[in-house]
């Protein structure tokens, strides 16, 4: 449900101004989680977004809680030094916000408590005066259980990171930056310390009741959402997104469709090849086994969980899900409940006039277009084709639906589509989307957590149609509009023979 996002010369979106989202709420109300999720979503849709976290900034400037004056967090009377210190921190944060806006940023999410009316009013007026749209985003929680589990999971424990790449680990580490304060603490002591801080705040907290500013109030992580005077394009997108996120445990699987008879034509929309059908059978078996194992590990009854399979309306994709519609009695033990849904929005990236051509032919007949495509495969749209950006816009409703879905999900899709969705889930920058590797024969398992996602790829199939060398020259050359970018962009392109050898085949 995203309108086209067009950037003007200033680098901002055409029809949305600059927005400051001011989070409001007591500690451990999920502000950080919501802020990060929103940042990830907006960045994926191409909006220049930044979370400015007061807590992170304070830790960077002043160090952990032990180094602070004792009255730093207690509200009420403070020594002049503490007042000056606090002012220094909040001024510094505001400067960060201005810096981001001035360098072409569009949305800033100011992650801080902002618990008093006076403070919010001053902040909002300051930015409003400069033409920035201010939204209050309040997160309330009256469920003690949620609060305690927030403290334990986000603030105290470091997440159990089992990721396939170092970079992802780095991203996750950034997301949980706020837990650094308690690293090395005794967990119970940490909980007590944090809980004490919350109690102090509660006494002085003033919920957002002023209706003169636009606000969004979220109660108990999405159980109830109130929206006041939210107008504007991005603002309403933000609301819809927030309405759809949930934190129920589930798993999302991604797999590519099987090989088709004419791999390199979008228009021909051909059937699966014989190895393609074989692949479909193997995929079904592997998903059943893998999922049964995963559910068992978590102690979830298989009868309780349905598997929803999404395919595109392309035949290679829908046919790859065919075995799920013809389960044997044996299969049904492992997968008692399944539903297959065909989604026309999930077709692969449209190659336009380049359909069916080889890279050489394109280079020859469309030299200028080729040049621009190679330079920026994310944003460039070949004649009558879609760019990856167009594809992201097209996929956005599906993505919201993915966020909303409570059941386990298997997406049998095309490389380009899986790339966009993975990039969103993992939080990769848009420009890297075309270069994400999605090999046929791998099942990618993604488990959303409060910090981001855990993801893991399982290899289950080798055969015709699988990329032979994991991203080198010659990879899926017959389907080049979808896959050529892997070779042109980024670090994965093997430059030397040595590099090629280093990649397991």
């Amino acid at each position: 449900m995203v309108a086209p996002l067009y950037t003007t010369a200033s680098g901002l979106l055409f029809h949305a101004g600059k927005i400051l989202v001011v989070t409001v709420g007591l500690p451990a109300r999920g502000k950080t989680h919501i802020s990060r999720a929103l940042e990830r979503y907006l960045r994926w849709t191409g909006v220049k977004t930044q979370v400015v976290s007061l807590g992170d900034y304070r830790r960077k400037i002043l160090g952990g809680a032990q180094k602070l004056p004792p009255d730093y967090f207690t509200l009420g009377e403070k020594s002049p030094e503490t007042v000056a210190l606090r002012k220094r921190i909040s001024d510094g944060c505001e400067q960060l916000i201005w810096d981001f806006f001035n360098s072409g940023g569009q949305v800033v999410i100011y992650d801080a408590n902002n618990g008093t009316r006076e403070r919010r009013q001053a902040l909002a007026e300051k930015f409003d005066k400069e033409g920035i749209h201010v939204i209050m985003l309040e997160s309330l929680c009256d469920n003690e259980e949620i609060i305690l589990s927030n403290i334990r999971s986000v603030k105290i424990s470091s997440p159990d990171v089992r990721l396939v790449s170092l970079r992802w680990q780095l991203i996750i580490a950034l997301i949980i930056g706020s837990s650094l304060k308690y690293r090395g603490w005794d967990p119970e002591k940490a909980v007590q310390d944090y809980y004490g801080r919350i109690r102090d705040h509660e006494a002085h907290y003033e919920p957002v009741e002023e209706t003169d500013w636009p606000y969004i109030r979220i109660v108990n992580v999405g159980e109830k959402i109130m929206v006041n005077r939210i107008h504007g394009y991005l603002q309403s997108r933000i609301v819809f997104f927030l309405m759809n996120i949930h934190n129920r445990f589930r798993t999302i699987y991604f797999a590519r469709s099987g090989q088709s008879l004419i791999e390199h034509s979008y228009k021909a929309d051909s059937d699966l090849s014989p190895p393609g059908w074989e692949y479909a059978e193997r995929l079904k078996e592997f998903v059943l086994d893998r999922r049964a194992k995963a559910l068992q590990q978590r102690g979830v009854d298989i009868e309780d969980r349905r598997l929803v399979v999404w395919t595109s309306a392309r035949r290679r994709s829908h046919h790859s899900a065919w075995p799920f519609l013809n389960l044997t009695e044996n299969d049904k033990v492992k997968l008692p409940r399944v539903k297959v849904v065909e989604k026309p929005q999930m077709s692969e990236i449209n190659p336009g006039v380049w359909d069916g051509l080889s890279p050489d032919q394109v280079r020859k007949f469309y030299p200028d277009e080729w040049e621009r495509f190679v330079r920026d495969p994310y944003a460039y749209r070949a004649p009558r084709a879609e760019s990856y950006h167009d594809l992201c816009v097209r996929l956005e409703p599906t993505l919201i639906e993915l966020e909303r879905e409570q059941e386990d999900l298997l997406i049998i899709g095309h490389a380009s589509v899986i790339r966009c969705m993975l990039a969103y889930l993992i939080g990769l920058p848009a420009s890297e989307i075309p270069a994400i590797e999605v090999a046929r024969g791998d099942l990618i398992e993604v488990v959303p957590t409060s910090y981001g996602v855990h993801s893991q790829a399982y290899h289950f199939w080798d055969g015709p149609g699988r990329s032979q060398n994991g991203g080198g020259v010659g990879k899926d050359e017959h389907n080049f509009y979808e896959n050529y970018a892997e070779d042109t962009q980024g670090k994965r392109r093997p430059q030397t023979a040595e590099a090629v050898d280093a990649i397991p085949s």
Partner: protein
Amino acid sequence: MDPTTLTTGDLAHVDDALEDAQQSKDLLSVQPPPAMFGAGGPMLKQFDQSSAASRMASQAATPPRSVVGIGNKVAKPDYSEAKIVLAMVGLPARGKSYLSNKLMRYLKWLEYSVKVGFIGQSHCVYCHAMEFRSSTSASYDALERDKKPNSLSGQREDHTAQYFSHDNVEATRLRDQLATDSLEMLIQWLHDGGNVGIHDATNSTRSRRAKIEERVSKEKGFVTIFLESVCDDPAIIAANVALKVSYGDPDYKDMSREEAKQDFLRRIREYEAVYETITEPHLSYLRIINVGNQVTVCRINGYLQSRIAFYLMNLHLKPRSIFFSRHGESQYNVEGKIGGDSSLSERGSHYARALPALITDNIGDAPLTVWTSTLQRTIQTVQHLPYNKLTWKSLDELDAGVCDGMTYEEIEQAYPEDFANRDEDKFNYRYRGGESYRDVVVRLEPVIMELERQENILIIGHQAILRCLYAYFHNLPHADLPYIKIPLHTVIKLTPKAYGCDEERYTLPIGAVDTHRPKPGTVQPKVPVFAGREYFNEE
């Protein structure tokens, strides 16, 4: 240019291309090359024949039907799991009907099956069909009001009062019976395949809401959502009252307008006295204050539910107009080809030059935003317009897949059976490697959402796209959608009103071909072939 005469330049071009083709030993003969797997060339047919063998080797027990040729009919997506009872809550004249009408139109456009169940429907066999809604809800109003016997006035009210007030217990029983019957009917209808049943009543007390919620929760997989419309803006209420009174409500047919208004206002005050806003924390509800100004969403789970919430959140009541126009006549239009990305014809450029005057005459100084597709012909059409312009990829013309760039005659010649199939069920027919009308509706949903949020908009689009958008605003059935007439060089102005849209059409006297293909078998005027494609003769 006359296509039959070739210049020496053309011949040289052909020579070059042939040389190239020989060098690269491929099938390319012109530059740029034609679509490799277009339905016009021989490759697609050859491929289909040769691949039949490989399908036999398939491992699947019963492989899905293979699609050969240029496309196939696609079944409607399975919405059978969506079972929602949407119960309206709110005082009279607070825009409940406006919201439920809009919502019904939106959901129907998305092919959900939606029904509004009015209170007392089952008792209304004696009502005249035209008076159906107003009289039933009016008698329900009378029943509700009956709790306070002294408050009644007016001719008809006296009648109903007489009828009910002599036995208050009986009235309460009857009222409950009416509400229960109506809900039962909705539930039955949902069982019979419906998706969203709208329970249109005031449902203004907690006990009534509790009853609804309790009843629906007995049905497995059914969900209740309450939609409360609150309005404290006197201007909006007054407008709603005026609308109600002037719409010829049969309740008021023997009264003067002023009397009717007074009576209606009195009626509202009666309701206000017993009204209880939704505070029950366990209910799943949406509260909309002053149509979109303030929205509360509570315990809304499920995708369709959140979509409904988001849609209602985006509505507004500011007066505005939406203008639709197709691009100016394109080269492909002249040649009778479908799809493509051709430039405007000379007459098309003429239209582009004439368009600014037409629009500015109509809209004056009011702000306007122009939306186009990413295709040349729409961008060229707006080039002289002095407004903000945005291009949407989702406004691109229906993708005709393998048939892109062919004429209907060529398609009919190459694939006669497929061609006939499409005519049989055009909405559901998906071109191979392309789209069906349904796919276009799905892709246009974000456009509709954004259109609801915006004010004055001019969309320069394409035939199939505008048909889909037009069907949304006029609530037209999907079977008729692919046959809506959207001629070239015509601006359609839609002005949303409380219960639909007003429409004006402005046709510029600039000749253009007629690209409308009526459904074969339906009556169509017989005209000579070449003149038949013209609906304006050039001066």
